[in-house]
């Protein structure tokens, strides 16, 4: 029998320094972008109030919103699919909560739970159609974009004779589950900070004397929670490996014993879950559900994920990256307002940043994966 010949390192490849190797990771684009964005606004909008406690809370909340849907979109995209119905799902979920909780008068926690169940089932249906027919998810979820939005307008109009249903805050008063989405935490701490003069207090109006920021909204808690869960799931579990495999090459993964269909359907469900969390937080904060909620959110989620370094075609990406993408997106959006840039130019900036981000990320990814 042959003793296997010793194969040595290829002398035809230049070695990459360990320092460079440590830096080259999927999140790098996101990290660089985040630093760039903060430096930029630190220079041009520092005295606009963007970095006082209120300002920080301002862009944090916006970024947290993006983060919630970006986590779902990121995992789904890594699993090789994407979901254009996220925005419509947000509108639909909010409306269903309002119809169940206000119009039908169910206890709010029942309304919320039933809505979650309903939306996750729709996510599963999306996924089921995609894996069963082999159609591109672009088309299938585009169909659901229309279908869900149609129902979101049609149902309240038929049932309640209006397209905004209010009174949710009142209906949710004292509800244990609603408090998980609508409240804030750390109120005591912020009050103390306000008294100690660490953060500013209101000088005028009905709440003079209270601290300008009176707690961390649950929205932010959810966002961070989802990012952590998503990150651990993706990088530290067996299921995470399956997500990468399903997106990298579904056929190969299936042949290696990965239950690809289950993975994909689960990810569609998780995306729907994230959209519903988004809707629940929004409905509880604003107290009303409208038929126009969530418009274009699917694109915003995809943009955050792509800025965060994920590959549109699946199999590559990181939740931390997506979260940083959401942060960049939120900071830029709010920062332009703080900096006083003409607001209709926001879209132009967004487009340009998106282009630069993907070009940077492509470059990084090629180094990592040896893609050609």
């Amino acid at each position: 029998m042959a003793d296997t010949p010793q194969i040595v390192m290829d002398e035809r490849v230049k070695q990459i320094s360990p320092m460079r190797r440590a830096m080259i990771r999927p999140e790098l684009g996101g990290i660089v972008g985040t630093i760039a964005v903060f430096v930029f606004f630190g220079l041009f909008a520092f005295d606009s109030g963007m970095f006082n406690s209120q300002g920080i809370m301002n862009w944090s909340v916006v970024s947290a919103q993006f983060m919630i849907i970006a986590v779902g979109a990121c995992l789904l995209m890594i699993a090789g699919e994407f979901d254009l119905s996220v925005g419509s799902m947000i509108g639909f979920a909010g409306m269903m909560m309002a119809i169940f909780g206000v119009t039908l008068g169910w206890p709010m926690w029942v309304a919320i739970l039933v809505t979650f169940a309903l939306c996750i089932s729709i996510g599963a249906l999306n996924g089921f159609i995609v894996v069963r027919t082999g159609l591109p998810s672009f088309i299938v979820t585009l169909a659901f974009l229309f279908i869900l939005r149609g129902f979101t307008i049609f149902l309240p109009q038929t049932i309640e004779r209006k397209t905004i249903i209010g009174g949710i805050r009142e209906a949710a008063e004292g509800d244990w589950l609603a408090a998980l989405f609508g409240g804030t935490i750390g109120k005591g701490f912020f009050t103390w900070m306000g008294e100690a003069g660490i953060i500013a207090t209101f000088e005028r109006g009905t709440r003079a004397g209270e601290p300008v920021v009176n707690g961390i909204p649950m929205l932010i808690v959810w966002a961070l929670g989802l990012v952590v869960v998503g990150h651990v799931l993706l990088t530290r579990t067996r299921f995470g490996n399956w997500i990468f495999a399903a997106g990298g090459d579904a056929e190969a993964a299936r042949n290696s014993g990965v239950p690809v269909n289950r993975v994909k359907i689960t990810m569609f469900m998780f995306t729907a879950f994230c959209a519903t969390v988004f809707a629940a937080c929004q409905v509880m904060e604003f107290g009303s559900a409208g038929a126009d909620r969530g418009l274009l959110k699917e694109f915003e989620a995809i943009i955050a994920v792509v800025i965060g370094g994920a590959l549109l075609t699946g199999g590559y990406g990181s939740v931390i990256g997506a979260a940083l993408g959401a942060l960049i997106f939120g900071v830029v959006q709010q920062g332009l307002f703080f900096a006083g840039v003409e607001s209709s130019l926001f879209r132009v900036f967004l487009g340009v940043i998106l282009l630069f981000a993907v070009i940077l990320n492509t470059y990084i990814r090629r180094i990592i994966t040896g893609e050609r």
Partner: protein
Amino acid sequence: MTQPLIQMKNIEKHFGSVIALAGVSVDIHAGECHCLLGDNGAGKSTFIKTLSGVHKPTRGEILFEGRDMHFADPRDAIAAGIATVHQHLAMIPLMSVSRNFFMGNEPTRKIGPFSFFDHDLANRVTMQEMEKMGIVLRGPDQAVGTLSGGERQTVAIARAVHFGARVLILDEPTSALGVRQTANVLATIDTVRKQGVAVVFITHNVRHAMAVGDRFTVLNRGRTYGTAKRGEITPEELQDMMAGGQELATLESSLGSTV
């Protein structure tokens, strides 16, 4: 002769209007290398895919150690100890070598109620196994996409050997390999066989088949054309069988000996 490890009886497989297998029977014994030969489109890949759980046979039965087996999907086959290296590589270029190595068989470690992917173990095992096959990786987190074709093939085989306790199926593993890599793969087959594993080896190359095969089954147009034992058949006879029984005499004379 002992009881075969796997008996496949009259396997048929139809894809819509295409009849890929029209009744193929093969026995596979432990510690033996069974070569599957035949023309392009004869149905070799389809046949081993029914064995590895990718396709469900339309008709026919599979006996594993005498008991009836039904694989719903590749996971079941893998769980039963059947490891397969498919013709079109089952590697995911964007993923790291160690993630690929353990794809579908991830080792887990419990921390409290949760079980996590045991990266340390996975990395260690991957480096070890690859070293055994004579390939030194830059690191276990190197993406498979950066490996050469031969190296990838080796990862796939190493993986199958590592997990494939009972049966190892190799679908044309050597077709794209250089001479040295081919020698390596043939040597591995030899080792594995001697460890008592049943090997199913598909190839178009008569010499590769003769080098390691114990038995040779030739498929033709979705049917078993015949089975022969090592020593009972000459390379030339085998070659004629593979070409569907057509004598390639004219070619021989002008281009010399067996191709």
